[in-house]
């Protein structure tokens, strides 16, 4: 049995053996070295760029997932325009905080896992099924998380059965919990969550929900040095995505720049942002 994808020859027996519809299971059987969790771990702590804040909020009709653009390594900004929010499939998205390199790889594998299942089975996984699959992947990364290479995603999607947007958050051990209303992960999440707690209402429109997450990211960047705010000079704006029954949509550059601009302009008059009523 050859594990070499370069070889052009007969399909190896493993390819034609009836088995599970999971791409990860196939990799584990056929070329386990390609699975991130199966790598030999080096000794000691590894320094690598970290992504920071991801926020999500539901509204009647869908869910919004957004992330800032900064990656940091220690006290240095490693990258100003990193992308941390990705479509997982047509009806779900994943945002990642933690070690950027591993997280991006995990997302790639997760996307493939969902697509592979869909192609083999001719049907998509349920939203719960997708959330559980992501859990398994984080759990397999625990060894690396112990060395400081943790990956903590936020998963959001449209549940076609329940007809609503749902958010799942994770801890480094793969523990999964469904969040109601809004959620945040990453170093700036404490501040983002505080902002959303005061601004969130259950009857937000899509437009209000996207403004809410940008406000929350602004507050996160305001108080957390590892989170990047809208960069007006370089025209780098947060990535905002919306998932509804029509599927995944990422706001165009024009839309997200307009959103960030209006939030920033209001902050020039009121640096602490919109205020909630006292009682």
């Amino acid at each position: 049995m050859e594990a070499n994808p370069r070889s052009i020859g007969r399909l190896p027996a493993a390819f034609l053996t009836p088995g599970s519809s999971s791409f990860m299971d196939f990799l584990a059987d056929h070329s386990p070295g390609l699975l991130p969790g199966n790598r030999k771990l080096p000794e000691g702590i590894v320094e690598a760029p970290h992504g920071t804040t991801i926020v999500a909020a539901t509204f009647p009709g869908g869910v919004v997932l957004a992330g800032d653009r900064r990656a940091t390594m220690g006290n240095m900004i490693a990258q100003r325009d990193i992308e941390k929010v990705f479509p997982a499939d047509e009806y779900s998205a994943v945002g990642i905080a933690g070690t950027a390199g591993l997280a991006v790889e995990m997302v790639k594998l997760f996307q493939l896992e969902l697509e592979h299942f869909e192609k083999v089975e001719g049907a998509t996984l349920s939203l719960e099924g997708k959330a559980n699959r992501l859990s398994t992947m984080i759990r397999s990364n625990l060894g690396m998380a112990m060395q400081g290479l943790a990956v903590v995603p936020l998963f959001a999607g449209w549940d076609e059965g329940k007809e609503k947007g749902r958010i799942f958050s994770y801890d480094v051990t793969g523990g999964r919990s469904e969040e109601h209303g809004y959620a945040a992960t990453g170093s700036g999440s404490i501040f983002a969550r505080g902002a959303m707690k005061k601004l969130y209402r259950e009857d937000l429109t899509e437009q209000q929900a996207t403004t809410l997450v940008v406000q929350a990211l602004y507050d996160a960047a305001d108080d957390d040095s590892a989170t990047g705010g809208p960069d007006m000079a370089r025209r780098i704006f947060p990535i905002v995505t919306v998932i509804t029954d029509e599927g995944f949509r990422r706001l165009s550059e024009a839309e997200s720049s307009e959103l960030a601009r209006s939030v920033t302009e209001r902050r020039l008059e009121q640096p602490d942002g919109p205020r909630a009523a006292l009682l």
Partner: protein
Amino acid sequence: MSTPFYVSPQQAMADRAEYARKGIARGRSLVVLQYADGIVFVGENPSRALHKFSEIYDRIGFAAAGKYNEYENLRIGGVRYADLRGYTYDRDDVTARGLANVYAQTLGTIFSSAGEKPYEVELVVAEVGTEPAGDQIYRLPHDGSIVDEHGSVAVGGNAEQISSFLDQRHRDGMSLAEALKLAVQALSRDTNGSEREIPAERLEVAVLDRTRPQQRKFKRIVGRQLKRLLEADDAAVAKTDDPSDEVADE
């Protein structure tokens, strides 16, 4: 110990080929056509769940005639091959040519190894390009040969007759409705030349549509959309889809 009868290699191969061809002929034929915006797959299939056409990768589709369990096995092998390759390198490095080669090797090895019975399948692997000139269609008969096809291709029992029918009538730049109707016309002709009706419920139709904004271009056409395409009258199709075709269509 008894001496086995001598069978000449030519005879052995001819027997195996005949065995495979007979198996394939038991199923219904299907056709794959190029149209203006991509490639359309059309076949008669009473089952809603067991597909003859499916997605392999972003721009690559798969069609098969013959024995279901055998081509399903090859299909899943192909999906695994494509996903592994795309994961190892890049999504752009998965090509129909590469996949067709792997299928050809697989079918060829099975066909010529004495220990295995030949697969009773005939496959089509198609890749839609960013423009019509980039479209690729490969036909893979049971013995592991590859035929690079253009315009239209038919596989299955009645393939030869359908192919010649299509060759005469297919032209470049057809609209989807036109190509679909031509395909149905071709499929509904019996071996003796008479026509029979294939209702929309018994048709399986899928496209690789290069105009789809998604990375994955494969799409099944079902229900209302299929009915609409089948009912669209030719003049209206020519008008709405491409006004410049009107003169050519009359």
